[in-house]
């Protein structure tokens, strides 16, 4: 195993995990208003996707956050509901609260979980219509609530952002909770992973289109203006992917600077996702602006994930709070 990056074995293992994704979660499903990823909730639980990095005795798969991050990058590619991230974080939260029974039930798929972000006014729930539990993320960590405990729920949108958004009041008395110190890096890593997957998927979409779309008698990919956008996109993907793998390995090895690395991964992936989803629309031209094209779905999901992370500004502020090993008086790892 490499001391800096995901190993070949880890990459191979995750390959085997993701084989069913294309069939279960084609991106085109998001064009159907009635679709819900919660239809595949139990299947996902059976695959073990909610407990990749939890130990086997706690009902997990017993792998590390490296495999988990690689899997969630694939979830990002397929625009899988952030509820799946909620399940993983809720199981961790329950486990950290010492409630193993609850963790087991979440991992087994018995209790569907949705995710929410705490705001100044209350909470914003995402894709919560089929959930029984809600995991609320804030700058202080996570809190888990039964959905019945959530008051003043109001649907904000279902169409504009291509996912259901609701506002509600923040309830009291969570059934489980975890501090930022214990779970913050896990939240950031999983969001960074999904944003990395979005950046990668939109790069591939843009390049494929640039190769077939013809204008002025040639493929538009032969124009320098298009090439330069695509190069910026692939460099974003390379940076986000390698930063994700590097930070996940640092976190799995409990390296002293792992929080710095994960915070960097989130900032890099967020910017990569915004740039790439935007340029993918631009490269698709008029088609990219249409509702029937997948391009806008990636842009919108990038915004939803950024919001769940507390916003790019907050992610930068969180990075500022960490120490780099290249700062004064700091020792190198190794």
């Amino acid at each position, binding site marked *: 195993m490499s001391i800096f990056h995901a190993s070949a074995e880890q990459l191979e293992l995750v390959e085997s995990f993701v084989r069913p994704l294309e069939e279960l979660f084609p991106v085109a499903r998001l064009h159907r208003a009635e679709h819900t990823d919660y239809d595949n909730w139990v299947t996902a639980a059976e695959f073990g996707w909610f407990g990749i990095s939890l130990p086997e005795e706690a009902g997990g798969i017993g792998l590390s956050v490296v495999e988990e991050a690689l899997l969630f990058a694939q979830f990002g590619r397929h625009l899988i509901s952030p509820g799946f991230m909620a399940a993983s974080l809720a199981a961790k939260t329950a486990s950290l609260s010492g409630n193993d029974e609850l963790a087991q039930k979440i991992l087994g798929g018995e209790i569907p979980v949705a995710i929410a972000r705490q705001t100044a006014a209350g909470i914003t729930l995402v894709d919560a219509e089929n959930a029984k539990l809600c995991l609320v993320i804030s700058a202080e960590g996570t809190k888990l609530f039964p959905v019945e405990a959530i008051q003043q729920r109001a649907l904000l949108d279902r169409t504009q952002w291509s996912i259901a958004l609701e506002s509600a009041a923040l309830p009291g008395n969570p059934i489980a909770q975890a501090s930022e110190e214990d779970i913050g890096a896990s939240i950031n890593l999983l969001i960074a992973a999904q944003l990395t997957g979005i950046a990668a998927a939109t790069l591939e979409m843009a390049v494929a289109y640039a190769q077939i779309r013809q204008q002025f008698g*040639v493929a538009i990919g032969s124009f320098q203006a298009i090439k330069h956008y695509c190069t910026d996109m692939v460099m974003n993907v390379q940076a986000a992917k390698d930063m994700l793998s590097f930070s996940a390995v640092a976190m799995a090895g409990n390296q002293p600077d792992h929080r710095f690395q994960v915070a960097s991964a989130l900032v890099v992936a967020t910017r990569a996702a915004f740039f790439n989803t935007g340029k993918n629309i631009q490269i698709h031209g008029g088609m990219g602006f249409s509702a029937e094209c997948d391009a806008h779905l990636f842009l919108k999901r990038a915004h939803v994930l950024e919001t769940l992370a507390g916003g790019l500004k907050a992610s930068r502020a969180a990075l500022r709070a960490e120490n780099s090993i290249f700062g004064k008086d700091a020792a190198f790892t190794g």
Partner: protein
Amino acid sequence: MSESLDDFRARARSWLQENVPEHGSPMEGPESREYALAWQKRQFEGGWAGLTWPQAYGGKELSVLQQIAWFEEYARAKAPSTHNALFVGMNHAGPTLIACGTDEQKAFHLPKIMQGEVIWCQGFSEPNAGSDLASLRTKGLVEGDELVVNGQKIWSSYADIGDYQELLIRTDPASSRHHGLSWVICAMDTPGITVRPIKTMAGPAKYAEVFYDNVRIPLSNIVGGLNNGWKTAMATLSFERGTASLALQISLSQRVEELIAANDDAGVSDTLMDLRADAAALRAMSYQFAIKSETGPVGSEGSMIRLYFAELAKRVASASIDIFGIGAPQVLAEHGLGFDYFDSYSETIAGGTAEIQRNIIAERVLGLPRGSR
């Protein structure tokens, strides 16, 4: 290797602590030459020269993880920049000779480079062959057992203080583009060579124009075969692990940290955090590239890392001027941030402009169709 990575790192750290020169390098001229040679000699005598070179040629052939540890410690100790007058010999001409040179060429030149006896300079670009290097026109005509060279090179790094030049010239007069070129070792004291240093916008002259007036070079100085120069020039990268620039990258991260430590203004904090995160990503990319390169060919990923570094270096230099202002002592100092800032404008020009690099990445990494430039 019986020595553990931790022990290796500790040994590197303590040697660097005792041996890194107290003062930085002079910016140009004979003093910069003496400084660079003395530093190389000291590294050689301490057993720290040629770390990336194969053992067969006197190198240490360190594992990638050891190279990473060395360059991390090197930057930490604030050792002289690896982008100095030794750069061409250690990272360009030396590797080319190792890949394509004859036994005689290797036996003569490689020890001199490693032991800090000679400075090499580059001779690729011409006034009309910049990003389009293959359009170069400096001629070398075969006469007996010699080449007679006429023409002009420009942006030749360290030509004013160099002993040898890696010279790419057109040896088949009927040829065009990549064909009919030769990669030649040119001794800079050969009659007919005139060197004119170029002052840059940053001040000091590390580049020069070089004029060739019937310069006679023995045919035995051709590396990789007559009219095979393009291949020779490309072979340079055959054992490149990308680790040679690690120390530079880490120095860049250190500079970002210095800016963060010096600045509490919320207005530029977002910029600084993006720089911080991007510098961390550059490190992650470089380590990934180095690790992959040890087990197989890595393709064009290296050119992405180079471009990423170049643009990040410019952004860091620019941020430092924004933060300190044009009149600050650390900006105006001799090795100061002002020099770094102005010099950073060369990052996206030297060695192929960022625009040409983008074309190449789009075509070789992404497979987009070639178009007009």
